[in-house]
């Protein structure tokens, strides 16, 4: 780029460059902030930090390691924003690594209106979380319960045989949160279908 000969033009070219860079930096900062959640989630999934469970694995592991038995404990709570009763069928079960197992949770809507919930899983200890693979889970989708409705919610999982030998017990914990947007959407649909006159 040839420097302009007019000093005034040089200054304003310089100013334009600074403004351009400053705007670029602002845009970059905005996109970085916006992408923080995906970045953080991916980081947690790769490292198992924060109890995020392993990827959904469709294929059966080759080997079931019958020499080891791991106790899997279940825990279920619903967030104060969601008036549901939510609990596991059994408190704990013993499984072999590599074995496909399933467990049931029960949920009941105690409220007078239809509510949509979203379960968020967490696995403790952290080192175990990347070896805990769910093949099917009620937490993959939104769950809708009519007033008073009860439902069994299954989860199927495999513990990777590579799980460190030090892990004897794994806890799978779910918290059910209210999905406000989906609940509002459902309420709107209901009011249309239930009272066509209004």
């Amino acid at each position: 780029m040839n420097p302009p000969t007019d000093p005034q033009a040089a200054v304003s070219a310089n100013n334009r460059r600074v403004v351009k860079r400053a705007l670029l930096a602002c845009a970059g900062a905005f996109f970085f902030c916006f992408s923080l959640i995906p970045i953080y989630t991916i980081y947690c999934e790769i490292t198992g930090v924060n109890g995020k469970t392993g990827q959904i694995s469709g294929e059966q592991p080759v080997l079931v390691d019958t020499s080891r038995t791991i106790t899997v404990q279940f825990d279920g709570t619903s967030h104060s924003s969601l008036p549901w009763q939510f609990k596991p069928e059994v408190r704990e079960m013993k499984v072999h690594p590599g074995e496909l197992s399933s467990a049931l949770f029960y949920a009941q809507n105690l409220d007078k209106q239809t509510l949509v919930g979203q379960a968020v899983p967490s696995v403790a200890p952290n080192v175990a979380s990347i070896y805990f693979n769910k093949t099917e889970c009620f937490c993959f989708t939104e769950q809708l319960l009519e007033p008073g409705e009860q439902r069994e919610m299954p989860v199927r999982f495999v513990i990777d045989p590579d799980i460190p030998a030090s892990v004897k017990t794994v806890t799978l914990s779910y918290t059910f949160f209210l999905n406000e947007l989906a609940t509002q959407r459902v309420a709107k649909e209901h009011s249309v279908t239930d009272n066509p006159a209004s």
Partner: protein
Amino acid sequence: MAEHATHDTHDEHHDDHQQSFFMRWFCSTNHKDIGTLYLLFSLVMFFIGGFMALVIRAELFVPGLQLVHPEFFNQMTTMHALVMIFGAVMPAFVGLANWMIPMMVGAPDMALPRMNNWSFWILPFAFTMLLLPLIQYAFFGVGAGGPAGGWTLYPPLSLQGGNNVAFTIFAIHMMGVSSIMGAINVIATILNMRAPGMDLLKMPVFCWTWLITAFLLIAVMPVLAGAVTMLLTDKFFLTSFFNAAGGGDPVMFQHIFWFFGHPEVYIMILPAFGIVSEIIPTFARKPLFGYQAMVYATASIAFLSFIVWAHHMFTVGMPLGGELFFMYATMLIAVPTGVKVFNWVSTMWKSSMTFETPMLFAVGFVILFTIGGFSGLMLAIVPADFQYHDTYFVVAHFHYVLVTGAIYSIMAATYYWLPKWTGVMYNEALGKWHFWLSTIFVNVLFFPQHFLGLAGMPRRIPDYNVAFADFNLISSIGAFGFGLAQLIFAWIVIQCAFLGRGAKATDHVWEGSKGLEWTLSSPPPHHSFSTPPVINDKDLAHGDVTH
């Protein structure tokens, strides 16, 4: 923390033009006037924040709920922190930087004087916005009051507030803009405007600590802005950055917040280290021991401050490896900090010390800040932290490093440079009263809180078990004593700055003072060092200038 010379004194130096009051103070581009404005603003905020602290201590005077509603109590703890951190401590340091850095490096003014004006005048608007919901509620009964979720603004709690969330967040944005502009100004001034012969490693330590602080500010204030913007969109625009139901994560807020928050801690203490490194050699009449070690220790602390943030959230459920890393990294900070403390002690070792008020505050700083440092080391130990977390032990710890650390250094700096700024000596007897009353009462106030915390009293709760009654009573007595003692400080400042009462100060003010600022008259001319000063190494600050 505040002063300015009477109009007459200043106007003498206005050779060619007179300014109206409005032009001089509202449109000022003069580093001394803007420094004065910053310091006065900080003094006002110090008393507002202090009043909130007294509301807290009055409520905690005896067990039970008596004076204020719990919701209002929560607003007091939240606003006390925000006002003290962003309104009192940070503007005071920026004010000191404004006044002293150009005079210390032999520059005529700050490098970017109009931006300097802007960065100050944003602050009154920012704090009006921050305080508005609280003022409306407390004095006019309008609205639901200020933010009450703690100054750390953790979601989901902080998002359960009303519209005050928006007020707080926009106020924080404005404070961030102000801080970043102030920091850019300090860096530009120090790197571009030093007089010939003022090498970087001949600068006073205060300039060095501020240079490093300025880089910290530029690095972390945008992080805070990002974090609070995400809070804003979560609250008002239906995003789910920190909402687990929508796929976000509230723990991520804590990581982002403390990535800002820990360097922020050092933003509030590094300039204090600089101030104490100026004052102790003056009254010890000896050069600072280990000048270069001081500079490198400051830089190491600044670097380490970026890799220890998670020690604020040990109990959040981190992997063991993470807890160990953050524990050891935190403990590592004790090494450069220890270097500093030993350097100050070595400077005083076998020196001819006298104990004027600035020196008293500086020595008080070294001793009491070190107590805060030790309790910080205790908190760094992961297994112990599970007991200490969110108790009064933490409250005691950070008040020892902030009140007897940062605030003491600001008071030391005020006494040290007040005669230079105003041209009159402050009242030494009153200064000593202020120091001794403050030091006794601040320990009565905060030392019992260590015991309360170890016994398990949680912070930010308006009521407590009767088992904690005695120490809370003692602590509250200390709080009122300390608060009243600060009125002496305000009176001393008013005497010097507004009434011009006191003996005429000499140019050197102190027997052992060294550095370019002491070569100017007291008070200094409105525009100083219009031509670069000739530097004699022996006039320079108490550094190692022989290399």
